[in-house]
């Protein structure tokens, strides 16, 4: 009889603890399929000629202009947007935190955290590869064909937006300096 009582007590404890664990946690978004890397057709074999520096080019650019820009991938801790073909390009004249500043031990020198945010914005342009709907492609860029933070990249494309400091280029070709 004692054993029966013990078993019943144990069962009651287990039942109560499992009843307490009902989940009313916030909603979770549905799982999604893995995103493929950017197709190789967007990468150029040779560096395009007459590439312009970003800061100088931004002064005269307007929407619809054909443009060739050169710069380095950076401007923030993660200059790429995960799962979208979009990144930030910073003027080559800007020095990263490991180039001559006292923050040479910075783990993410490409974020230019040693410079004021306004200066980073003035020297940056957004580069995106868009699909037929005009939205950035669902593709992974980071780590593909040499694209990585601090890599020097020449971009061929069309200016999609040029409003003040905000310049967005729809790229048709990318050349990554080896």
């Amino acid at each position, binding site marked *: 009889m*004692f*054993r029966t009582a*013990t078993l019943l*007590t144990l069962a009651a*404890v287990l039942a*109560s*603890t*499992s009843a*307490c*664990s009902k989940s009313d*946690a*916030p*909603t*979770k*978004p*549905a799982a*999604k399929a893995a995103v493929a890397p950017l197709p190789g057709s967007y990468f150029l074999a040779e560096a395009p000629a007459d590439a312009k520096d970003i800061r100088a080019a931004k002064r005269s650019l307007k929407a619809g202009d054909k443009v060739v820009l050169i710069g380095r991938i950076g401007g*923030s801790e993660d200059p790429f*947007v*995960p*799962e*979208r073909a*979009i*990144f*930030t390009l910073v003027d080559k004249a800007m020095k990263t935190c490991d180039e001559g500043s006292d923050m040479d031990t910075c783990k993410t020198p490409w974020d230019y955290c040693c410079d004021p*945010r306004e200066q980073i*914005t003035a020297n*940056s*342009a*957004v580069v*995106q590869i868009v699909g037929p709907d005009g*939205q*950035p492609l*669902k593709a992974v860029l980071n780590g593909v064909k040499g694209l990585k933070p601090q890599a020097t990249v020449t971009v061929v494309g069309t200016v999609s*937006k040029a*409003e*003040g*400091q*905000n*310049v*967005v280029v729809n790229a048709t070709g990318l050349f990554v300096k080896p």
Partner: protein
Amino acid sequence: MQTLPFTYSARNLGRSRLRLLLSVMGSAMVVLLVLAAGGFVRGMTTGLERTGDEANVMIVGIGSEESIERSEIPASVASLLDASVPGLRTAFGTTFVSPEVQVQLPVVAGAGSPEGRLVLVRGVTPTALLVHSQCQIAQGHWPRSGHNEILVGQLAHTKLGVSAAALAVGSTVNIDGRDWIVSGRLAAPRSVIDAEIWMPLADLKEATRRLTDSCVIATLGTGPGAAEFADVAAFARQRLDLEITAMTESSYYARLAGFFAPVRAVVWITAGLIGLGGVFGGLNTMYAAFASRVRELGMLQCLGFRRSAIVLSMLQESCLATASGALLASAAAVFFLDGVAVQFSMGAFGLLIDAPALLVGLGAGLLLGLLGTIAPAYRCLKLPISESLKSI
């Protein structure tokens, strides 16, 4: 192996009712302490986790990813986000986009200290109730803009150190030197929002003399064509001029929970140290209990029971007492500790005595029984049978 019947262990417990009572109560106190520590840790972690919804994306100022209160973004971001990112959740033509200001302000209520205590005040629009699905108005009505009205969370009184009656609907609360009327009570169970004060966004901006928002919170849609986090992140990246960045709400609060990890570690260490004291107390009790039965244990060996069978019986006896204490402590914790409000720098949370906390508590009770038996059993059974039989 021939084992002793379970009833032998159970009946042995009744030999000394005082000793049994001490064992059970000692175990109950240690387990109650472990449950309080577990409830504290679970309450804090769950409170922060539940505040962040995985379907919500936050837009904050670049560089303010670790503290929304430091963040300042243009007031236009909410409408720009709504217009630029298709696939955000909508209901009856309203997109789930909530511009908010979050700021810690000194609040005085009831007979509180004249300086007041810092409470997180959130400036919101009615869409805040859409994106924060865990929130609802439990009493009263939504605060009207321009009428100096506020919503007060159910645990705000804990943060303020006053009685719940001091924040009843219709009472007056002084926030940063200005009086506000409580128009309603906000309920957001098991989240840190429960200790916040909400007021209309325009009123808070006017009171704090700011033009910017702290953040914009948007809920991602579901089904085909629904926006993903990457779409909102791409929007933020495309607007270099706004100097904004996107992150999921759950990741923000997970980071905050990580920030409090040392506090949780200290709570566990304290409980562990006191539990260790409980183990030594248990050792003492069990040693006294078994030492007086050395002759009996020797007789059991004469009857053919092996030492391992006797140890098993002693373990059953000890674990039965400590498990009874653990069950008593669990019941007490569920009825008296669960939901007890505790304040911390982020606001307040309720102790959470849920399944994991109860499992830890019951495990501690059983461990107490095991550890409390091994040493006394060794001392009693190491004697040769002849000496055991002559023992007084």
